[in-house]
């Protein structure tokens, strides 16, 4: 009896993860398997008819110029945006980690845009950037008319504009994570470094940055995943235009799906999953050996 009780006690945790495991199975694994099935059909999204087409959708993807362009947009956005978010987030965290009275207000002001819907924020920026009637354009017309033009209407500038808006809106999140990391570093380490004659730059290089790796890891993962799947802010600011200049893979999937190509859209979604997994995996491998335990 005692043996059985011990066995149950030892394996109790396995039963305890069952509810979460079942939910994960139903809402993640099952749809993924269903998606894999649909990706091999020519389903239009609502018809009863689904014909098996094998890997035709995947083959089509690699000869689809618009899809390949969408990958380019997604990768540019998905790498540059997290990089800027992390650099700016870290700098702001260092700034607000001071003892100045204004630090609470500053943190709040920087974090505030993060809690507003990207769609609303996108529309607000559209009003700011709009040529002729936008606030920015009116200021530029008064002080520097040569810079006054349709920023969102120039294909090679529109994506950068969206990246800047995205960084401006979401920089508060990485900042808070870095701030939490900064505040968990024992002050004694800095005191010892100062006694040893280390300057501020050396202290940052040898104490602050290595101890911020866990925070950096969280930020980089979250930002890459969020940026690679970017949808709403682009839809609000440019609708993927002009032309297809800012059309991300998410938007392309959405458009294909609602144009009667649900099978193809699902195949692209699976490819997108791999595209996101690769940089995540690489970053994870790179950072695994960098972490330092306090």
């Amino acid at each position, binding site marked *: 009896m005692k043996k059985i009780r011990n066995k149950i006690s030892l394996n109790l945790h396995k039963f305890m993860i069952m509810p979460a495991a079942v939910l994960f199975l139903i809402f993640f694994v099952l749809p993924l398997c269903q998606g894999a099935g649909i990706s091999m059909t020519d389903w239009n999204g609502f018809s009863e008819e689904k014909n098996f087409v094998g890997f035709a959708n995947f083959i089509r993807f690699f000869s689809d110029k618009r899809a390949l362009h969408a990958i380019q947009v997604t990768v540019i956005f998905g790498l540059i945006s997290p990089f800027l978010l992390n650099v700016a987030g870290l700098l702001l965290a260092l700034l607000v980690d001071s003892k100045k009275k204004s630090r609470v207000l500053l943190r709040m002001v920087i974090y505030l845009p993060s809690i507003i819907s990207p769609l609303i924020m996108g529309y607000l920026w559209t009003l700011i950037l709009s040529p002729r009637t936008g606030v920015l354009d009116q200021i530029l017309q008064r002080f520097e008319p040569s810079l006054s033009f349709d920023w969102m209407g120039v294909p090679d500038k529109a994506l950068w504009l969206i990246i800047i808006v995205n960084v401006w809106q979401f920089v508060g999140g990485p900042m808070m994570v870095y701030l939490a990391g900064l505040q968990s570093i024992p002050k004694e380490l800095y005191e010892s470094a100062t006694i040893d004659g280390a300057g501020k730059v050396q202290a940052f290089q040898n104490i602050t940055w290595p101890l911020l790796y866990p925070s950096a890891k969280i930020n980089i993962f979250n930002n890459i995943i969020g940026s690679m799947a970017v949808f709403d802010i682009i839809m609000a600011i440019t609708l993927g235009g*002009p032309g297809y200049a800012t059309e991300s893979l998410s938007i392309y999937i959405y458009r294909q799906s609602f*144009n009667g190509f649900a099978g193809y859209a699902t195949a692209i979604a699976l490819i997108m999953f791999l595209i996101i997994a690769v940089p995540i995996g690489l970053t994870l491998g790179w950072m695994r050996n960098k972490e330092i335990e306090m």
Partner: protein
Amino acid sequence: MIPMKKRVCAGILAGIMFLGLTACGQKESNETGTDTPKPVQEQEEKNSEAAKTEQVTIKFFNGNVEMVDWYNEAIDRFNAQSDNIKVEHEFQKEGTSALQTKFAAGDIPDITTMGTQQMIDAGKFVDLTEAKWWDRIDPSIKEISADVKTGKNFYIPTNTMITATIYNQKIFEELNLQPAATLDEFTENLRAVKAAYPDKDPLYFSGKEAWTIGMLFGYLPDAVERQRLGELEYSRAALEGDISKLKFSEPGGPLETYITWLGVLWEEGLINSNVLTATYDDAINAIAKGDAAVIFQGMFTIGNILSINPEAEEELRVCAFPAVAEDVKPALNQGPDSTYYITADSPHQEEARIFLDWLFEAENQASFTTTRNAPSAFSDVTSDIGAIYGSAVEASKTAAIIGPAREPAGFGGDATGVMLQEFFAGQYTPEEFAVAYEEAWKAAFDAQ
């Protein structure tokens, strides 16, 4: 080892959960199991009465932003006077996308105001060819509403809609201009407006919302072959993917001519400089406030225009699109509007018909027509549609009438509008555009 207290606590909590579940089960058991069985006849009578007074909820799905308030008010009136049918109104801006999601998710509305060719092909709607409502509708409207593939009618249109050129008559009169019949005349008119009013936009395009410029392909360049071949032959060629008849990439053909013309307007500043980022709302504001002299739009915009500037009723008028080739007439699009489909999977098709009976009553349709600013399709409905729409009706008497655009799935106004965005962004010459357009059309047709 788990401490004893925790085990006891977990046991109590599990017990409470279990009791809660069994209590639910017991309640149901009491309701059904402990009642004394009633005689069969008495039960049947009760069921029959219940069927008559059974509350049925009809889901009404609408994608017409301009009519949301009207539908809300009308449905409130219907619900107040109906004993057993309750109608729920749902509006979605991205209507067809939302409807497709609903079909895929099994959340199927009973009535919708929109549908696509693919949904019709997939058998999602009830065949309404023999519906009694057609008795009150002009046969020509029934004809243009029929599905090209099957010849059946899957929706009832309560109105007709004209899409054409809306121009500022006040400016035109001041400058002694006449509505243009050709592209050259149109350009001269715009130049005159630009010279007299440098701060105004002679022609306003809302290019950010691609459909607004994409739909024009069907009414301007396509109007040439549609007139040369005839609507029926053109529709057949489009359905069969017969590119040789559609002639999109013909050198010097209508499409290339149209794009060349747009290029000239763009270079001369005769189109608004923010063409790539201007929205539909911007265009409506510009024409309503007199900041733009001309827009190409459907008459459904008139309500919005008048709500911004009621005086626009006196200032704006409508004429046909200019002809892109010399051997054809200026054209305008006239098609069915405010359409109603009953879904094939609806369990309440009879109730849906009862609601539509009420909705299609002459009194309700007179009110609808006034709000919609579109002539009613019903012969027994008369209403004042205003001077602007009156001029559109007048223009339709001399212009060629173009029906709904015929394009493959995935190559609608959005896709063609995006291509035009690319042209304005400098990606194509007119010759390249015409070739790329044909390739994209064919690719979409093959992928269907």
